[in-house]
């Protein structure tokens, strides 16, 4: 019989994955160190008395094997294997409501620790991260190119197989329906509101400076290409506009 090795568990019943156990120790330490060295980290973690107010307040805890108290405790213990493993699935159950933060008597911010862990997971292009973000590709495309999360034209039957005939009917003549809304919604269909080209150009500048484009490239090269096509097109349009304005003034 093969030798039985006891797998350590966390949460209510989550074994540390085989994959995590196979990652070299130094690599796991490096990743957790990247989380700890984030400039926000010292403001998000203080002491902990295990009072459980965070977990009792946590809406995600009601539905998932997820506990903000455990995040805090694992950081205080510096449990490298568990922290590393958490970054692949566990932390993605957090709904980022920050009730843990506004209730914690120490003012720890478990939701904030989750933000940092997620960012590090994305920066390191963890496979799990790619899978988790896949369903959000359309939203990501919209945000990166227009700054809008959702628009009317994203509500298409292809993406919502559970829609019935009534809903399908609703989605016809979208533009006319948008126009009929008695207050100003920008009359746009592809975005939630009319996006100014200048604002979009400034936003791209921010994506560039903060390395967000590179991050997307590592996560999803196809999505990156689609995004960059639109970005470059808009930037060209902007350059042309500037030239036209220069000519007019001259």
């Amino acid at each position: 019989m093969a030798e039985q090795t006891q797998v350590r568990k966390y949460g209510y019943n989550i074994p540390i994955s085989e994959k995590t156990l196979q990652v070299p120790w130094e690599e796991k330490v490096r990743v957790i160190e990247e989380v700890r060295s984030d400039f926000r980290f010292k403001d998000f973690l203080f002491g902990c008395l295990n009072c459980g107010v965070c977990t009792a307040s946590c809406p995600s805890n009601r539905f998932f094997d997820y506990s903000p108290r455990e995040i805090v405790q694992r950081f205080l213990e510096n449990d490298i294997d568990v922290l590393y493993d958490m970054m692949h699935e566990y932390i993605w159950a957090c709904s980022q409501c920050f009730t843990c933060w506004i209730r914690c008597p120490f003012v720890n911010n478990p939701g904030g620790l989750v933000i940092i862990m997620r960012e590090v997971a994305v920066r390191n292009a963890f496979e799990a991260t790619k899978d988790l973000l896949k369903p959000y590709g359309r939203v990501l495309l919209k945000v990166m190119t227009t700054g809008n999360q959702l628009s009317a034209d994203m509500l298409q039957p292809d993406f919502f197989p559970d829609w019935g005939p009534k809903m399908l009917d609703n989605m016809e003549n979208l533009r006319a329906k948008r126009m009929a809304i008695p207050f100003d919604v920008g009359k746009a269909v592809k975005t939630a509101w009319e996006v100014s080209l200048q604002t979009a150009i400034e936003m791209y500048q921010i994506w560039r400076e903060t390395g967000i484009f590179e991050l997307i490239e590592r996560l999803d090269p196809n999505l990156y290409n689609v995004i960059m096509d639109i970005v470059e097109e808009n930037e060209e349009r902007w350059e042309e506009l500037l030239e036209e304005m220069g000519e007019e003034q001259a």
Partner: protein
Amino acid sequence: MAKSVLVIGGGPAGLAAARVLGKLGIPTILVEKEDKLGGRPILESYHTLIPRKMKPEQVLGPFIEEVQNNPNVDVKLGTEVEAVEGEAPNFKVKLSNGETVDVGAIIVATGFKHFDPRRKGELGFGIYPDVITNLQLEQMFSKEGKLYRPSNGELPKRVAFVFCVGSRDRQLGVTNVHCCRYGCALSGLQGSEIKEKYPEVEVFCYYMDVRTYGTWEYPFYWEPQEKYGVRYVRGRIAEVTYSPKDGRLRVKHEDTIVQRPAEIPMDLVVLVLGMEPSDGTLKIAKILGLAQDPDNKFLLPSEESGSNIVSNKPGVFIAGACKGPIDIESSIAEGEAAGAEAAAFLGAKVSA
């Protein structure tokens, strides 16, 4: 002529200071803002005091009687200190009744105030009538002699004590990080009192940790469990809500020892209130220029003397809950020590 001593505050510490000064034959002026001596335990009708399980009248009665009957002690009720001029041993103190008195030393015993639980909105005090404070529970016992739900007057089936309300809580700012010191023990006592009278009532104590220090461990932590069946659950109450379906409250917490989040029906929720410096303490600190903790604003003793009742200002002594949460018997001991120190301070000046 012997200089006299001014004692500010007629609670346990102030009464104890005035009593010992009177016994030593030192002319003493005791000013009390309210129109009755005794401080919070008497004014607010506490039921049973920790740790000796005596009634407030039993503990403070002898002090009040002796202070009132000792010709050396001049009790001024309904009076506050307005201003203080000069240095020890020649303080000129202006009182709110228009008098100005000359004293050689001052004892500050201005006490604490209860935390206002409405500042923790999620606990539902002031919203749900069945959420009460531990002070209200004391008064329920002492004034009405029975336990009931304010919403319908019936005996509660389940009672929850919520520890550390306004204590050990940075959410309220740096002002409320300190421990209230008495809450764990008083809850153990109140829980036992409930179970003794109504064994059918289930009593739960929700704690972060239980701080029944020293000899308080058995009577206020073990005995409530062993003898009376009070149940202790580790987990701070996150919120109190109400269910119109059954008219009962819900307390939400995580039992962090068995790792189990829960939402439990309760009929009566008792908030265990923290202590903050009283308005009088804050006022006198300003008037006398006394050192205060930068965070919680309680008065700080000077470091030079080594004593914890000698203030940073020569001739001014501080005793009791104006220095931080304290139990009544320690408060009395501090008052007596401050009285002796004040007497020694004046004696030294006189004999020099």
